[in-house]
């Protein structure tokens, strides 16, 4: 299972990468693997204000639905439109082309409640 060391992780299997006050959010390799073939992603609308740990959408595989939570709060400034046409990117490249959405107005303090790679690895090993 692939696990980049420079990201922050949530208990709900999302990752966060902070660049200034803009955070990019996606799901982990572990998450995509447990979900199986992802067929559809419902993302929040651009401009929407979201709170940390809030439910912002869903991810569908053929026979399952999972809630999508945001690991950070702020304003949604961009969503990955390419997922609509080809949701399989999420299975193939969860940390790069399969990113989900970007949140603006995130301060570094929000990251303190998240896990680092080592802690997340421990979580998924349980």
């Amino acid at each position, binding site marked *: 299972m692939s696990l980049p060391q420079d990201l922050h992780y949530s208990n709900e299997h999302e990752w966060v990468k902070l660049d200034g006050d803009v955070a990019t959010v996606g799901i982990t390799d572990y998450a995509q693997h447990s979900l199986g073939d992802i067929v559809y992603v419902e993302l929040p609308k651009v401009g929407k204000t979201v709170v940390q740990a809030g439910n912002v959408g869903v991810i569908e595989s053929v026979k*399952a*639905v999972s809630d999508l939570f945001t690991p950070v709060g702020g304003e949604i400034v961009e969503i990955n439109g390419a997922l609509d046409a080809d949701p399989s990117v999420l299975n193939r490249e969860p940390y790069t082309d399969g990113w989900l959405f970007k949140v603006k107005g995130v301060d570094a303090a929000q990251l303190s409640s998240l896990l680092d790679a080592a802690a997340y690895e421990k979580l998924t090993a349980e």
Partner: protein
Amino acid sequence: MTYIPHTERDIAQMLEKIGVGSLDDLMQVPDAVKIRAELDIVPALPEYQLARRLSRMAAKNTAVDAISFLGAGAYRHYVPPAIGALAMRGEFLTAYTPYQAEVSQGYLQAIYEWQTYICLLTGMDIANASVYDGATALAEGAIMAINANGRKKILVSRAVDPNYRAVLKTYCDGLDITIDEVPLAADGSTDQAKLRDALAGKEYAAIAIQSPNFFGVVDGLEPGSAEAARASGTVPIAVVSEAISLAALATPASWGAQIVVGEAQSFGVAQAYGGPYVGFIASTTEHMRRIPGRLVGKSVDNRDQIAYVLTLQAREQHIRRERATSNICTNQAHCALIATIYLALLGKTGLRDVAGLNLERSRELATAVSSIPGCDLRFEAPVFNEFVVNVHQPAETVLAKLRERNILGGVALGRFYPEFADSILMTATELTTTSDITALAAALKEVVNVPARV
């Protein structure tokens, strides 16, 4: 025992294998819940007596022998015998929902064909595998719109079938959704100016409008009203209760509908005192994830052959549970199959002929009735196969007198529209004959006699 293969010897052997002494031992329940009354059920009848008893009941339904001008949401059309011969094949009749695609390809393909027919007829992009009937299709369509824009109010034309509106209200009461109605214009269509006024507030999730409407009038959204709906972010829902009209009238898509809901009973499904019928929901692609019920998709199998399968199931109750798009599980697959066979048999040519004959016979009927002193047409707008006749006296009285002459003259409107207590909704289809019309006209002349102008 009826329909049960077990011999006493089978039962004894099976009980022994299970390790219990008797059938009663298998059925043990706590004393607190034991059965407390003798069952009041008729004693078992051998099959010939069962058939005799039910046949006697069927024979009491003498309405089927009358000359009938009833419609108003359930229609008498010609049903080719090939439909019954095909639909009643045991493979179709005794299948469950096609969960196991490998042994259900035939049914899945038939539903895919049904979905296609509904799209081609309505002008929509997608259609589902069916819902219970026209009224529940409207309720489910309204919920789609609510889920699309999050609003809590629905706007409905008062010319939508009153039964449909009543069912919509039942559903909306559950969801705490408010319904407002658009009044009628003088010509029997929906008042477009009032409709536009209502849309100005941008508070409605959907505007539902029926065509042909309950009075038979060709209705819809005028271009200005469609524009008003767009500007207001309100989803236009077209309602169709006489599906034969789809073969003739401009498609709901052409006047701006994003969702089309309706009843397909007219496509070969028996009147059967109200059911089972078959509702449909079609929509533009943008509502695909919100459409309720089953959807069949085309895919391939592991041998690279074309294969059909139930798809987008993550919308449904068995996966999404309380967050599903609807609670619907069983739909009306067999009625949808009947409708699909009907459409295949009639084809473009046959369906156009049926639609044309409905137009022709209804005009013949309207001409005959409106020539009778004391009877005139209530509305001026163009109609499909039914229309409202004002008899200038209580409609129930007139219909009761026609009944004595073995004629079911139509549906009295007073029970739905108190202001039209003197009016009858009359329907003619391709099965209405000139002699039927002559008989009605003669009877009406006697019954209505002196026009009592109110």
